């Protein structure tokens, strides 16, 4: 089981971001490195890629405000 975390270096400031959308529905088997979500920080749309291959489990819903380092979901081993 791997946490999907909003990486500390994904954006520069300490501002909060918004989890904009998940590319795949909960339960989808995803590949490591593939795009799985978009995060909005100010005027930028940032990409979140899968930290591992496995089954996506969504913990944070779209439109939620998020912070750097926050756990957004998990990748379960299959």
């Amino acid at each position: 089981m791997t946490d999907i975390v909003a990486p500390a270096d994904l954006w520069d400031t300490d501002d909060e971001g918004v989890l904009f959308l998940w590319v795949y529905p909960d339960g989808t088997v995803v590949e490591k490195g593939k795009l799985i979500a978009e995060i909005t920080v100010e005027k930028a749309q940032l990409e979140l890629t899968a930290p591992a291959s496995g089954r996506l489990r969504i913990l944070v819903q779209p439109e939620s405000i998020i912070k750097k380092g926050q756990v957004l979901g998990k990748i379960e081993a299959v």
Partner: protein
Amino acid sequence: MAAPVTDTGRSLTMARAGREAVIAEMRKNPNIFVIGEDVVKLGGVFGTTVGMAEEFGAQRVIDTPISETGFIGIATGAAMAGMRPIIEIAFVDFIGVCFNQIFNFAAKTHYMSGGQFKMPLTMMIGYGGGYNDAAQHSQCLIATLAHVPGIRIATPADSYDAKGLMHTCLRDDNLTIWMVHKRIWGLGWLGTALKTAIATVPEEEYAIPFGQARIWKEGKDVTLVGYGITVHAALQAAEKLAAEGISAEVLDLRTIVPLDRDAIFKSVSKTGRLVVADEDYMNCGVTAEVLAVVAERGPRVLKAPAVRVAYPDVPVPFSRPMEDYCLPDADKLVAAARKTLGK
């Protein structure tokens, strides 16, 4: 016809879907290059070119000075000489500073040269308001562009169509303009993604032909015609109408030029009632063209006068209550539909 269900489960924003098409075509065709303001480091004001400079380099993704007339002119010359440029204009409102190169040169060169010079050129343009950007940054101007012969205009309403229409634009040897309403690009800073604008998008390439409207929802009591963001207002309106027992058909024009006149008339012949939704100004607009189709082909199919729900003929106001007053939304479409039913 509705988008085929390809269950890759990949929900993409319109910006990303459009980019995917551009990148795929750029990988195949070395003559395609992107030119415009802020397309390199910024990736386009609305994210149209994110990642492209990194992949294709400075030769093929080119930042320009603020010189729209100049670089659009340059792109047209490059197109005449065998290249295949994509021009980024972030806001349609900016066509004023370069309109001559678009409507007098690019749109007319093939014709005036008797077919000697082709103009394989695509423009990516953002349009629309509803986020308080005021009169000079919120316009649609679709009718303004559609009015001049020699231009083809695609206005996708979701990411599936965004990708498919971009592929078609990039394979067309004419001036094609791919236009996306800013509030459905899928940019968080312009508001929440409209769920209906985010579709599942296949990984493989596919091209949606011009001149083919799309029925998002079939119905029998009234036809709601829209394009771009107003398709989504129409879908919301259709849901509200369904609760009242009114069955609305939602028809997405998809491309304004060429216009699928057959689809318009077929739908209205079926339902007998027509509401057209447009965020562009009312006067001499796309809504008028849709009504003209019915008036010319057979007005007797109408059981009630048609209703146009378009932007009033005023510059876009800044203050929120005023801007909201002007925008076509689901409630206005519901009221219009009920009016056609005498309710």
